[in-house]
């Protein structure tokens, strides 16, 4: 028997329930899940265990997703307001960079996995989920199509007063998508330091520059 016990490879979470066959209580499930998040993972490379810390939005949205019950309006508002406060506007006042660089960033899915290093240049992973330019046919469908993003929103001159609202919204959305949608599935690109300010300016140009193939 001793041998068999040593095979219990990892500290088994406290599943000290009797073998009765009733459904587990929500408290049992919550505890088992929390214990698994603590004991079933190990830091590897740059992917540390702190990546599993649950902030309020992640905790609330997971429950909403699992139960199929959307957050109530008050909670949504609170999460959106808290995330809006994290948005950092461009320190040089420039919202748009170079769309050609933006295209490269949108194509790249590199960075932040345990097989990457701290010096890996992160990509935006954008095409994994979105259609963007018409030329790239290998695009994902988890997010909406962004083809003609600026054109469809009437942004003919991103520097004009008329384009300001959309330009600022797009920046905020890229920086922290949850500022506008509490349980957005989109990564918080700026807030989580996935892309830096310069890279976000380039992706902004890909979406909003009238010269970008996205708006042709």
């Amino acid at each position, binding site marked *: 028997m001793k041998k068999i016990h040593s095979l219990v*490879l*990892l500290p*088994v979470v406290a599943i000290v329930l009797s*073998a009765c066959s009733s459904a587990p209580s929500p408290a049992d499930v919550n505890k*088992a899940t929390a214990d698994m998040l603590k004991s079933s*993972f190990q830091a590897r490379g740059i*992917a540390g265990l702190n990546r599993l810390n649950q902030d309020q939005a992640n905790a609330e949205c997971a429950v909403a997703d699992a139960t199929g019950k959307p957050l109530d309006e008050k909670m949504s508002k609170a999460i959106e307001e808290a995330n809006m406060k994290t948005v950092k506007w461009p320190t040089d006042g420039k919202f748009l960079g170079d769309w050609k660089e933006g295209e490269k960033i949108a194509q790249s899915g590199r960075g932040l996995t345990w097989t990457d290093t701290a010096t890996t240049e992160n990509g935006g992973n954008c095409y994994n989920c979105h259609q963007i330019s018409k030329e790239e046919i290998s695009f994902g469908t988890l997010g909406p199509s962004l083809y003609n993003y600026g054109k469809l929103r009437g942004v003919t001159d991103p520097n004009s007063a008329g384009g300001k609202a959309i330009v600022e919204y797009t920046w905020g959305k890229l920086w922290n998508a949850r500022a506008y949608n509490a349980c957005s599935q989109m990564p*918080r690109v700026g807030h989580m330091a996935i892309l830096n300010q310069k890279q976000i300016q380039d992706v902004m140009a890909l979406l909003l520059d009238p010269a970008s193939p996205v708006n042709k």
Partner: protein
Amino acid sequence: MKFVASRVALAVVALSAAVGTAHAQGTAAEGIAKYREMLQDGNPAELFEMKGEELWKQKRGPKMASMEQCDLGKGPGVIKGAFVELPKYFADTGRVQDLETRLITCMETLQGFKGEDIAKTPFGRGEMANVTALTTYVATASKGMRFNLSQSHAQEKLMYEAGKQLFFTRGGTHDFSCASCHGSDDKRIRLQDLPNLTKNPGDGIGFAAWPAYRVSNAQMWGMQLRLNDCFRQMRWPEPKFGSDATIALSVYMGVNAKSAESIVPAIKR
């Protein structure tokens, strides 16, 4: 063996032909569909299955014993139908186990290997490579059968519910959960179709398609490695081999896949 090797060679020829086809004509999706179809003709998983069969019957380990008395849930030595009922609760270890962890239990109790050491061995190396081959052999014996996991034991139920909660838990730098990609119908990453694993995704899809041979890296992957690489791409820390989180997620997916047909061993891009 010679026969299998020639089929593998054929598959490689078919592969390059199909890639050429995809470039030359038709849509990318058509090209990919054709490529997958051609791959089905010669699945190198057969090599792993044969290696697994040898390992099952061979006397090995400190105790010089075979695996033929291993109890995978249907009694000692019964392999047919075992895979489509796993993970399940085992009274002798007191925990819910998937096929891979259960095989390690047998390697420990019957053959005298140290399970803990095997679990720490990187995928594709040493005894871990043997676990993958054994998994392929045992799982293939249930090809064409339908998933039917037990939910009668309290721990099986707890694993399902905790697995469900984990499935929706967001984490990592990108706030991804399993559900980010596998929570709704008809979604893709790039051109790769994503099964909706919150329900039965259909015969031979998702949980019913692993272990699978991956053409892109010429490796045989069990569900443990499949999950490991999902978490890598999700930018989470690494799940420990055979950990409760991996078992709970497997129970969640396996129960959801009830009545889906296993096509294991599958072949993937």
